[in-house]
């Protein structure tokens, strides 16, 4: 047998630090992306050009270029101006990347709320801001949860690209061990199992949240 699958079980635990690194990059770029996405979503629905155009430009650029290129621009490209370590570079690049997709998720969710909700809120005398905060956003956020969960899973998988700038996350770890032992398959399988565990747990948590928040919709 060319493969020695017992390695998978024996060496599984030594990937824990790399998995933690993967989780850290993912979590940080999701938080970054959600905050940025919310701000940009408001820019996209704003009737003021000063907000609308920059938001639209940002989304167009991010969605129209490869994420690996974006990572290289932050890590190598910006190094002339500011030398960032690999980890913060990855978080900034991936956070900015996720922000564009998350902005569109929020925008779609806000737009999907019936116009009558805003009118009812305003007709009580609420300001635009109050109506947004109290009436529209709570409903929109709930609606955004499934696509957000999806985006979080994509973000988890995309974090593997940080291996290209030598962040010691799961993929880099498996590549390094693989090339030093020529047992690529075994180590890649370990990395794969970690990714599967993370994405499955994430999917489960999102699903549970979704169900819990659905109380008010239940007939």
């Amino acid at each position, binding site marked *: 047998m060319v493969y020695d699958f017992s390695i998978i079980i024996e060496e599984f635990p030594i990937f824990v630090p790399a998995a933690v690194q993967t989780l850290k990059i993912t979590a940080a770029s999701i938080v970054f992306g959600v905050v940025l996405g919310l701000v940009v979503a408001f820019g996209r629905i704003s009737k003021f050009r000063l907000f609308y155009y920059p938001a639209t430009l940002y989304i167009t650029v991010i969605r129209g270029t490869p994420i690996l290129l974006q990572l290289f621009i932050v890590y190598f490209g910006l190094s002339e101006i500011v030398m960032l370590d690999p980890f913060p570079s990855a978080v900034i690049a991936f956070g900015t990347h996720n922000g564009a997709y998350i902005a569109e998720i929020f925008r779609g969710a806000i737009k999907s709320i019936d116009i009558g909700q805003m009118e009812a809120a305003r*007709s*009580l005398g609420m300001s635009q801001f109050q109506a947004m905060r109290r009436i529209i956003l709570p*409903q929109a956020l709930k609606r955004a949860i499934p696509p957000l969960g999806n985006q979080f899973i994509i973000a988890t998988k995309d974090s593997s690209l940080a291996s290209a700038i030598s962040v010691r996350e799961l993929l880099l770890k498996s590549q390094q061990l693989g090339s030093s032992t020529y047992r690529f398959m075994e180590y890649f399988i370990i990395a794969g199992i970690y990714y599967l565990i993370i994405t499955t747990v994430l999917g489960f948590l999102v699903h549970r949240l979704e169900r819990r928040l659905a109380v*008010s919709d*239940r007939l």
Partner: protein
Amino acid sequence: MNKRSDRKMVEVKGLHKSFGELEVLKDINLSVSEGEVVVIIGPSGSGKSTLLRCINFLEKNQSGEIYIDGRLIEHRDSHINKMRQNVGMVFQHFNLFPHMTVLQNVIEGPIQVKKMNKKHAIIMAEELLDKVGLADKKNEYPAMLSGGQKQRVAIARALAMQPKVMLFDEPTSALDPELVGEVLAVMKELAKEGMTMLVVTHEMGFAREVADRVIFMDDAAIVEQGIPDDVFDNPQNERTQAFLGQIL
């Protein structure tokens, strides 16, 4: 029923509204006195909803003036938000807040807009829910209510702001026939208590029984108005006659 006073609660002067090329309201003049119930009838597309929506500035008119309780409303957010506290609106499709319970729907306006203390707001909301016959539903979410119940909550929500005027835009049109009565009953009760009301409806029985005045709109204008018996039994304008002939 002589409950009217001379105080003008709503006054619309020379109102024009168009959507692009389409003129939806042409030179509307209208006033509603304190305690008066005015019913607006007319064919689909005649501008009834737009008129109500202009009165509380959900639509912006091109020209004309709107006075609420004698005060000219300017196109400024501060003015409009203040005015809206005095003008309750009930929509055809209820527009309850689905993420809030019945009680939360009713206290939302007083707490957020009037900064009323939560305890007071709840006491008042419970009284209002009792009045519309839904005290036992206060902890339900709107999704669990029938259409008639939803609309009664929507009425309670609007009343919670203690408005001086209530606008109703076809409040029973989205309801199953057997649920219309319960909503009309609440509206009749309100009228009896002296609420100033401007009601767009196709419920001619309600108009006849409750209205002090009926306005017939057609083609973006007020064509005819008068006390219900005159408008219904002896319409002067041939367009009114044609319309009533179709629906009665």
